Structure formats: C-alpha cells, structure tokens
C-alpha cells in the first residue's frame, strides 16, 4: 500500500533516506539551523500543552466516552422502558450480537452497503478520471467547467436527495424523459429497483470527489513527461495508459478508500431519498442501525449492530491510516 501511495504519501515512507539530505539543506541556511537547535531547547521547557485541553476534552466527552458507552450498551437489554435508567438495565451478554447476526437483517444490510458502495465506486472512478483528464489542458472557460463539475459535491446531501426524490416520482421528469425514448423503468422509490436508484444518485453526488483527487494527481505529472511523450509521438490512448495513469494510482487508491468509507457511512442520502421505514432493498447499515434505535426502540440491539459495523469500517480505515503521512520531514522536532 505505502509504496504506491502517491507523491502526497510518499514523503512519510522515505524518512530514513529523506531526512539526511533535508537536514543538510537546513544546515545550509545558518540562521534556520541555529534556530532549530534553540527552539528545541525552548520547546521542551515551555510547551503550551494546555492549548490541547479544550479540543481534547470535547473529543473525549462527546466521541470517546459515547463510543465506550455504545459498546457497553450493546451488552444490555435496552429498550424504551429501560432507557431512562439505562445504567441499571439488565445485562444480557452477547445476546444482542447473536440476535443481530442470526435474527436481524444485519447481514443483508452489510451485503447491501458493501455492494452498493463498490458499484457506485466502480462507476465514479472512470467518470472522475475522464473529467480530470478533460480539464487538464487549458481552454477558454475551464475555470467555469471546473466549478460546474464540483456542484454535485458541494450540494448538501439532503438537497440532492430531496431533488432526486422529486425527479424520480412515478410520472415525474425522469420517467417522462425516458418514455420519450421508449424506456419504461417502473418504480424508482419503491420495490426492488430502489437499490439501483440509490447507486445512481450516489454516483451523481460523489463522482466530483474522484475528479478532485484525480486532478491533484494529474497536476503532479512533470511537464517534461508530457513533452517527452509528445516528442515520441505517442498515441493519446497509450500516453494515458502508460505515462499518465501511473501517476494517478496513489491519489486514486486514497480516493477509493475514502469514497468507500463515505458511501458505507452515508445516512442522509438513503434516509431522505426513501424515508423510513426504508424499502428492504435499501436498508443499508446506517439506516438499519437508525431504525432499530429510533423506530423499533431496540437500543441494545442497535448498539450491537453499530459495533459490528464499526468492525467492518475498521478494515478500510486501517489501510487508510497506514497510507496517510502523519508527519513530514519538515518538522524535525516531530521525530523523537
């Protein structure tokens, strides 16, 4: 992973090799070097670590504590009657987990979430790459085109979902438009086709994210590389495939991971698009967890489901954390 993880990520990898020359560059600038030594002494005596307290306290109280609370709740028999005094509600061990795995739509939801995320990703990747490749060279109005391409990404999810919900009504604009070319799809917002509706709307909303990261990858291609392949008279397809795409591997791997996390965690889009209770074919993980809590009031079961989905999310998250550089060689005090 870390080897093909792009120009952005690479500096973190070459710490051993990259630090030495960087230091010599530092030493070249006398005052900077001296300052570095001085600062090191100073920073160890007088560090304003108290500045970390407000943010740290917030994150501990509102994220870490509830996270632990959620894990604890997953072993309780917690419903609307026991919620008020949740601390003293009965302990039932792994029963919630057993019920989640065997007697609830959880596995179905996991399957839906993963397959919908992957399908959306498979389509958004080429769309985003095509958009980035098309806006790479300058032309009149490129700035406008770039702004337009990012609109679906900046529109709030609840707006996107509300609009598509209206457009996909039976007899609505989408049905009308398709009918003029003789296609009759049937219901979009109810029944088995809802899964594909969700995939389509997610694609519409999230391809610009791939576009953004692909664009940043393209901008890292050296100009000499472009000139060399132009001199070689490479065909556009070969140039793309052998010269340009290798540069995109890293950013796109990153985009893939983050995109998958976003799709799997996306609550607003299915929630507003289909409402609750959602059709069974779009009962993705976030919707199922939400409905189990706030419609069925099976809080303990819902906490167990949430815990299981956290384990699922931990896989791409772990890969992502390994790939992103935490530090760079420009903060030498960061090491040690």
């Amino acid at each position, binding site marked *: 992973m870390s080897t093909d993880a792009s120009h952005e990520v690479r500096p973190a990898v070459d710490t051993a090799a990259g630090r030495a020359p960087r230091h010599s560059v530092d030493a070249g600038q006398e005052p900077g070097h001296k300052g570095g030594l001085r600062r090191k002494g100073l920073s160890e005596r007088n560090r304003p670590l108290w500045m970390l307290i407000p943010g740290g306290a917030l994150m501990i109280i509102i994220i870490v504590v509830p996270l632990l609370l959620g894990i604890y709740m997953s072993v309780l028999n917690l419903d609307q009657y026991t919620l008020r005094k949740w601390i003293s509600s009965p302990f039932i061990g792994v029963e919630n987990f057993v019920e989640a795995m065997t007697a609830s739509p959880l596995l179905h939801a996991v399957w839906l979430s993963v397959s919908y995320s992957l399908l959306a990703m498979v389509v958004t990747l080429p769309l985003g790459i095509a958009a980035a490749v098309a806006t790479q060279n300058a032309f009149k109005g490129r700035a406008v085109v770039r702004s*337009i391409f990012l609109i679906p990404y900046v529109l709030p999810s609840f707006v996107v979902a509300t609009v598509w919900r209206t457009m996909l009504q039976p007899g609505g604009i989408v049905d009308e438009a398709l009918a003029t070319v003789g296609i009759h799809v049937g219901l979009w917002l109810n029944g088995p086709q809802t899964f594909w509706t969700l995939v389509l709307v997610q694609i519409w909303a999230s391809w610009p994210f791939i576009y953004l990261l692909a664009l940043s990858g393209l901008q890292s291609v050296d100009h000499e590389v472009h000139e060399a392949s132009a001199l070689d008279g490479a065909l556009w397809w070969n140039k793309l495939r052998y010269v340009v795409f290798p540069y995109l591997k890293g950013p796109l791997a990153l985009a893939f991971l983050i995109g998958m996390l976003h799709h799997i965690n996306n609550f607003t889009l299915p929630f507003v698009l289909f409402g609750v209770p959602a059709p069974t074919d779009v009962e993705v993980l976030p919707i199922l967890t939400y409905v189990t809590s706030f419609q069925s009031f099976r809080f303990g079961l819902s906490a167990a489901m949430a815990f299981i989905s956290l384990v699922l999310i931990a896989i791409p998250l772990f890969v992502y954390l390994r790939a992103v550089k935490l530090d760079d060689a420009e903060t030498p005090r960061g090491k040690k």
Partner: protein
Amino acid sequence: MSTTTATRRSPGTVAVERPGSHRQHEVLRLLPTPLLIFVLVFLGALVLIPVLYIFLASVNSDIGVANGEFWPSSVTFENYSKIWTSVGLATGLTNSVLVAGATAVVSAALSVSTAFVLVRYTFRGRLTILRGLLALQSVPGTLMVLPVFVLFSSAATYLGIQVIGTQWGLFVTYLTFAMPFSTWVMVTYLRGLPKELEEAARIDGASNLGVLFRIILPLSWPGIVVSGIFAFLLGWNDVLFASVMTRPESQTAAVALQIFGASQEGGAIPYYGQMMAAALVCAAPVVILYLIFQRYLVGGLTAGGVK
C-alpha cells in the same frame, strides 16, 4: 502549469513565448478534441440539467412537476414566499445559521491552537493524537447518535442540564465532530508556513501565545477560513443528529426540509414547488460559500486528503 510559465517569462520574450505557450497546451492535451468535447458536454449536462431543474420546478405548479414537465407551463414565484412558514424555513434557517455559524467560529479557533501545538512542539503522544484525529474523522455518525443521545439525556437526568431539544446540544455535537477534520486541515496548513518569522519573534522575546496571535493567526487565515467552512458545512448538512436531538422550535433547515418532504407522502399532489424552492434556498448559502472560497477549499480538500 501555465502559471509557472507566466512567472518565468521575462519581459523581452513575451512575443516569442506566445506561440510557445500555445504549443504547451497542445502538449498537455490528453484527449483528442471530439472525445474531449463529448466528455465535457456529457458531464456538464449530467450536472446542469438537475440543477436547472431545481429552479424550474420551484417556479412551476405542483401539477406541472407531477406530470414531469421540465419547462414550466405556468410560472409562479409564490413558492418562495410560502416556504418560510409551510416548511418552517424561517425557524430552520435561523437555527442552521446560528448553530453552524457558531460551530464554524469556535471550531476554527480551537483547531488553530490545537494544530499549532501539534505542529510546532514535541511531546509524548503527539503521533497518537495525529493518528486519532484521522481515525475520528471516519467514525460514522450512526454509530454515535444513540450513545450521544443517551449521554445528553443522562445529563438531564443526573445533572439537571437540559441539552436534548436545544440548539446547545447540536452545537456541542457539531463542534466536536468538526474538530478532527478542522484540526487536520490546520495541521497541514501550518506545516507549510515558514518558521523564520516565529523564530524572529521568539528572539524578540515573544511568548507562546504571542507567537500564536501575532505570527500564526495573521499568516494562516486562509487555512482558518477553510477549516471554519468545513465545520459550517458539517452543521448545515447534518440530518442525523438534528432529526433525533431537536424539537420543532430548534429544528435546523435540513430537518425541516426532510420532514416536509416525508409528510407529503400519500393523498393529494405533494407541494413539489415548495420542496424545490426550499431545497434551492438551503443549497444557496453553501454554493455561494464554495464559489467565493473555491480556490482555498479545493486546496484544503486535497491537502487534507479527506472528504
């Protein structure tokens, strides 16, 4: 690419450079012209047709929208005056602006000081905190909403502090969930700042706070704006927490629109026009913010490598 040539260009060679820069665009071109035009037109239409439709449907009659009209047969702007009470956008937008705005300001302030310490000082656990910031960005809201709800209800039961149903509860929640990403944006931004000014200030006897306020803050306002905007968007766009933790009087615009849309099911023709008008009004601030700060935001997105 073209900017580097522009800066390198010396005054005398302007005339010579012009055809050269044209050739450069040719070199950068990756697609044959017909394909290029196809991609641009296809993707442009993919985006613009639905966006145009929002506006057209918002001035159309509900029957027109229900019948699948793209161009309205009759144009009316009265939807835009109805939504303030019917959808509850007057209350909703006020709450959204208050909560998301406060989130933006406080989270920007906290994240710049947090990032300052993380970037400029060494201490035990520093890398753990950085890693934690990244990990916390990806914790799904659906995982958190129930425990946070229970925590806040317990605050009412045991401490007598009423948080659920108030704007304060939302504000604290959004602030906390915005912090990891906002701080990460500031960390990447502050790393890019030269240290020489800080060093000079320290030699002149500036304290840590002095450095933060006199050197870091003036230099890093583009980063601060970006991290503030992301925090604002988090609050503005959220439906999950707001749908669980608000009452009608503390509802945000997002929830107001979602509830209005859901209540239109069944029976008579839904108020499509009002829904689209409200959607447009809710989207407008976000799109305007984005257009104004586009350059910084795109940089922040790719630098943060997230979202």
